Every structure is written in C-alpha cells, then in structure tokens.
C-alpha cells in the first residue's frame, strides 16, 4: 500500500464505520488474529492490518484491494481475538462494498448462476436427479444397504438436507457416507430437486440481498415439502 506522497491522517474519516455494529477501535494490535490466520501474508494480507485500516478510515483502500477475497472466512481470527472483534464480519461488510462486475470473476459467475438456476453449476434438474439415483444404486449394491433409494422431494419427511455442489460434480463418492449414516440411523430424510445448493454465494460475495434470496429458497423448500428440520452442512 506504499504511496509516494504521505496520506493526510486528518483527511481520513475514522468515524466512517462507526455505524457498523461492532467496535474495531478496541483493537490492542496484539496480532493474535494475524498469527492465527491461515492466509496471513498472502498478497500482503493480514487481518490485523485490515482491522487497523478500517478503524483509521482507510476503507476505500481495503475495498479496492484483493484482501477481502483472499480471506477464506474461516473465522479463526475472531475466535482468538481477545477483544471480541467480529473480524470475519468486517470482511463480509467490505465485500458488500464491491458488487457486480467488481467482485472476482469466479464469484461473480457463481453468484449469477446460483441466482438464475438455483445452483452455481447451472445443473439441470433432470441431471441432478439422475446423478443422485445413480449413486443411490451403487449404495444399494453394497452389503447392508440393500434396497436403498434416495428420497427426493419426499413430502412430510423429518429432515431436509442441502447438497454441496462438489458432491454432484467431482466428488459424488462423498455423498455415500452421509446417506449410509441416514440409512443406518433410520432417518426419515429428503433432498429437494430444486434449489438444493446449500452454499451461500451471497455470503461469499458479501451480498446481503442474495443471501436473503438463497436462504428464502431453502425455507420455501421446507415449506413445500412440509419438513420441520433442516440439515445445512455448509
């Protein structure tokens, strides 16, 4: 962030983020967040510096940097922070200040697809059902799971589970352990054939509106299928 000309400290509006619901001013600069951060140092990012810049009023610089997108939102920083600063939430706010084409391409595309088709892969409903049934058949072939089938859109089930896009794309094998546990536990469960994705691309991009829409779709699925318990592993 080195500049040629020094910034004027008095020109910064250190009160600009005062309406954010948490108090980054209490920071002791102990660096525990940076020490705990798994991506600290990548592209010059560290959470302490970000908190510091925000409290100094250097929000624009942070918004324009790549840092908010380097953060994996794992939340370890705020877990260790002795002053209880909600650091991941600061990142989310910062992300929300950059929208549309300004967010990184892969996130932008994912968000657009998820909003349009209900999942970021734009996977058609028939293909989704086909993949699940195909994997279910393999499970049913294993000893102890004879007769297993995947209960898609089962009305009145006890539990609705969302699905991570990876599980119907490159990691279909990883569907099986879940299902086997449900089967062994005698769980009455179901999967929705529409809007099945649990990943919140709105959260990734700091887009509160999109978060609302996506969460709303999952709630709508629960209503439609008359399920009262949700398993949302994401």
């Amino acid at each position, binding site marked *: *962030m*080195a*500049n040629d000309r*020094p*910034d*004027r*400290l*008095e020109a910064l509006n*250190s*009160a600009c983020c005062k309406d954010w619901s948490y*108090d980054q*001013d*209490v920071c002791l*600069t102990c660096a525990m967040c940076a020490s705990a951060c798994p991506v600290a140092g990548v592209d010059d990012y560290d959470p*302490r*510096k970000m908190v*510091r*810049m925000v409290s*100094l009023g*250097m929000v624009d610089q942070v918004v324009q940097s790549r840092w908010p997108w380097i953060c994996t939102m794992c939340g370890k920083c705020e877990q260790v922070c002795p002053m209880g600063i909600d650091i991941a939430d600061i990142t989310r706010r910062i992300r929300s200040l950059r929208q549309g084409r300004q967010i990184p391409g892969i996130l932008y595309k994912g968000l657009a697809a998820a909003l349009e088709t209900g999942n970021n892969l734009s996977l058609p409903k028939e293909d989704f059902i086909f993949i699940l049934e195909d994997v279910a058949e393999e499970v049913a072939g294993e000893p102890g799971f004879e007769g297993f089938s995947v209960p898609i859109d089962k009305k009145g089930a006890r539990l609705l589970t969302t699905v991570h896009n990876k599980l119907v794309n490159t990691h279909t094998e990883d569907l099986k352990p879940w299902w086997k546990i449900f089967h062994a536990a005698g769980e009455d469960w179901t999967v929705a054939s529409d809007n099945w994705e649990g990943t919140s691309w709105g959260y990734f991009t700091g887009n509160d509106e999109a978060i609302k829409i996506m969460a709303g779709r999952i709630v709508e699925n629960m209503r439609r299928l008359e399920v009262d318990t949700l398993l949302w592993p994401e």
Partner: protein
Amino acid sequence: MDERTNADRRKQTPPPPEVMIFGSGACARKIAANLYDQGINAWLAAREDSPPAAGQAEKMHWLTNIGLTACHGFARNFELKLTQKGSFLHQNVPAIVLAEDDDRSPNYAPYGLAPNPRVLSISSLEEKMHQASADDLFEKGARIVFLCGWHNDSHPVIAQRMLAGCLHLQSRSRVAAYFMTGNLKVAANGAEAQVQAAKRSGALFLKFTRDFPTIRTLADGRFEIDYLDELTRTPFQLTADWVVVDETIGPGRHLDALAHGLATRQDSLGFAQSDNVHRMSNATNRRGIFVAGGSRGILSEAEQLADADQVTLKVLAFLQDLDAAPLPRVEIVRGRCARCLTCYRLCPHMAIAIGTRVSVVTDACQGCGICVAGCPARAIEMEGLPIGAEVYRRLRKPDANKEVAERMPKVMVFGCARSAGKARTLSRLSGHTLPRGVQFIEVPCGGTISTGLLLEAFDAGADGVMLCTCHTDNCQSEIGNQVARRRADSARNLLKGAGVESDRLNITSVAANMGNEFTFMIHAFVDRINALNRS
C-alpha cells in the same frame, strides 16, 4: 520556634515525642495529621515561603523557608540545625520523615521539541483543565497530539495521567485527540479501561516500536508530524494544533541536599532510599529516618497518600519500640582504639559517635558488624559475633567417623544471616544435607568477616573457605557484600603469595529463598576443593 501553648500539648504525660517531616505536599501533610491523631506532634518543614492555605495547617506545626544545614545525633535524639531566612533554628527530634514532593519535568527534547506556547506538559494541561470549562479549553476541531514514552519508556503513573487528559479532551471538548505512544503502559488498576474509553470516544491511538515520528514546528506555531504507520506501512502526515508531552518523574529539587544532610543513601535516580528490598517500604539506611511518597520513588498521587499511612505505621512502631527493641551490644574497647575513624567511614547506618571517645550508638546501630571486621586495631567487640576461637573450635573438632572425615575436605562456610542463613535452613528443611566436613557459621552480614578471619580459617585447617553474602545491590547494610568482596579479594592475594591456590577461597551470593541453589553451590565448591586436594 517553641511557641506551643498548653492547648497544643494536649496529651502531655508523658510528653509526646515529636517528628520532623521535610516536605509540605499532600503526603507530608497527611503524615503530620495521622501522627497528630495518634497523639504525636509533628513539625512540617516547608521549603516555600508561602504560608499554608486555609485548612492545611491544622494538626501540625508549619515552618516555612526551611533549609537543612546539619543533622547531628542519632535516632531518639536527632539534633537538627535548620536555617530560616538567614537565621538558625535548632530542633531535637527522635524521628525524621523525608516527604518532599517529587519533581516532574516535561519531556521536550525526546520529541525534538522546544518549549513553546503550543507545547503543553501534562501538568500544565491538567492545570488548564482544572481552571477552564471543557468547552473553553481549545478551539473546536483542534487537533491535539499526546506524546508518550517513545525512546524512554513511560511509567504507568504518567501514562495514566496522559490517558485521563486525552479522554477528557476527546469526550468533553470538541477536539480530535491523537495518542502517539511507545509501549502503552497500562499496568495500573483501571488504566486499560481508560484506554478503551478514550478509544471509544474517538481518540486515535498510534503505537510505535522502532520508527518514531518526526515533528516539525511550522511558522504559525503548529506542528507537522510525519510518521510511518507500522501496521499498514503507510506514511502519514498530520498537522497538529497542540501537542501534550509526557513528563519524567524524578526526585524533588531539594531532596539531594536533604539526603546529604541526613546521610541517607540514595538510589540511582536520586530518590532518598536505596533501591534495596530490605528497605521495603519506608526505611532508610538509618534507624529513625523514614522516607515517604515522592521522596522514595515514582508513585501516583493515590499511592503517595497511601504511603503517608504506611510511614505513619512505621514511625509509630519505631517510637513504641525505642525502649523495648533488643539491640546488639557493640563496644569500642578503650585503650585499643587509635581514633583512626575507619569505623566511622565504614558504618552504613551512621551509628558511630565521635566525642571524647569514639563509640557505637546503640539506638542507631543495626548490628551488621562491618566496623568490627574493619577496625585495624581490633578494638570493636560485638556480643555474639563469632570470633577466631569459634572457627578454630569448629574446624579442629574431631569427627566421630575418622575414616570418612579424612577423605572429605574441611570447608568453612560463612553465611550472611539474612540470605545464606535462611537459605541454609530452607535447604535443610527440604531434606538436603551438606557434605560431611562442611562447617557453617552464620554471621549478621557478609561484611562481618575480616580478611584476617578468612586466613585464620585456613590456619585452623580448612581446605576451603566460602563466604556467602546477599546479592549485589541488596545488602541490608548497603555495603556489607561489597566490603566482603574486597576482603575476600585481598585474602586471595595473600593466599596466592603464600603458595595456596586462590580457588580455595570463594565468595558468592545467594537469596533467602534459594535453598536448593545454596546446596548446589556448596556441593560444587566441595567438589572443587576435592579436586584441588587430589592434584
């Protein structure tokens, strides 16, 4: 000055002892008031010309314009020679308290500043805040920068005042406060809460560890501050309207003269109490002279007032014990004394009186025995002090197990009762034993052991001699461990001259709570002597 009326002499029988208090600040006044409440009248010796403000002089005899010329005499009867506007006053008192206020000097140079109407010290800011209402202090929107502990670390006492000023201005006056600091000293109760309150009210805290800002005074009297923010690595510039600098707390201006006059030891900064844990909390090297508040170190105002209570307790106990306390009996034998005054020069407690004959004053003596060992004429005798005969008796005592005794070296250990003596007890209670052949003699101070006694131990048959004192800078008698070291050095030289390995004489230091270490040290020394015996 003896103008007391009978009404003043309230508790007349027996006549109340009187205490001289040097100082006129809050701490000194509280000591006097405390003593008065316990039936003891105190003089309050003020430097200043000004009479005390209303309500400040009750319960004490206030003397103004006082200087100290000399202090003769000893505990129970100090003879003070004072000056007051060119004339002399004499006053005898059993006890003295040094309670001059400390001196607070603003730090301009460490920040590259010179005194300037826009540079305030924290004291002058406090004064300003005291006088004017918050709104009138500074122009609205003024930028005020607090400079605290950059190159020289700050002290919590100062940091807390800086923080209070910063919080006050930021929250009450409509200014922008910036706090530029090195290590932020929050080691005082409530300090961390002050920092958080100041931050919440909008003050900006900037911390530096290595690259400190540069400050330039502008033509209009304001300041241009350039710095590199260490966390963001961004160069910043700030124009400040006012700066507030921290202060260094040191001994009061007159303390040096008072300490000299009273012959009390000073610490490295000049406060009137050596930095020695045996002095905890208000003692000096002299019996009957106490030190309190800003005269003994860097204390906050609250701590200074608490100190007044503590020192009152000490003075009361001292006065009560004057006749009761069992004191060591030290005598200078008439006829042997050559009046060389070595004892007078050595005595760290100023307990030697020079009259028609030289004598040790029981009321002032603390029984260290440094004079006994230092007297070239061996004219000083102290009750209970081990002498050569004891050393010979111990070393020549036959061991029941002759065979083992012959294999083990004979080692004489002299240990200071305040450190080695306690460490030895601790070591024994922890189940450690000393090697056979080790004789331990406890002495009141390492300085009790003369060069001659060290050599006598060898003469009596010791294979090795060890002298165990308190650690450097922590001798109850100030110099006992130093003189012990000097004497051990000269004994070692003499041994070398006589063809004895100088390693056979060892001087070391230990603390009262180092039982294990004490045992290790003795064992290591015995091993060394063993090796020397074999070679």
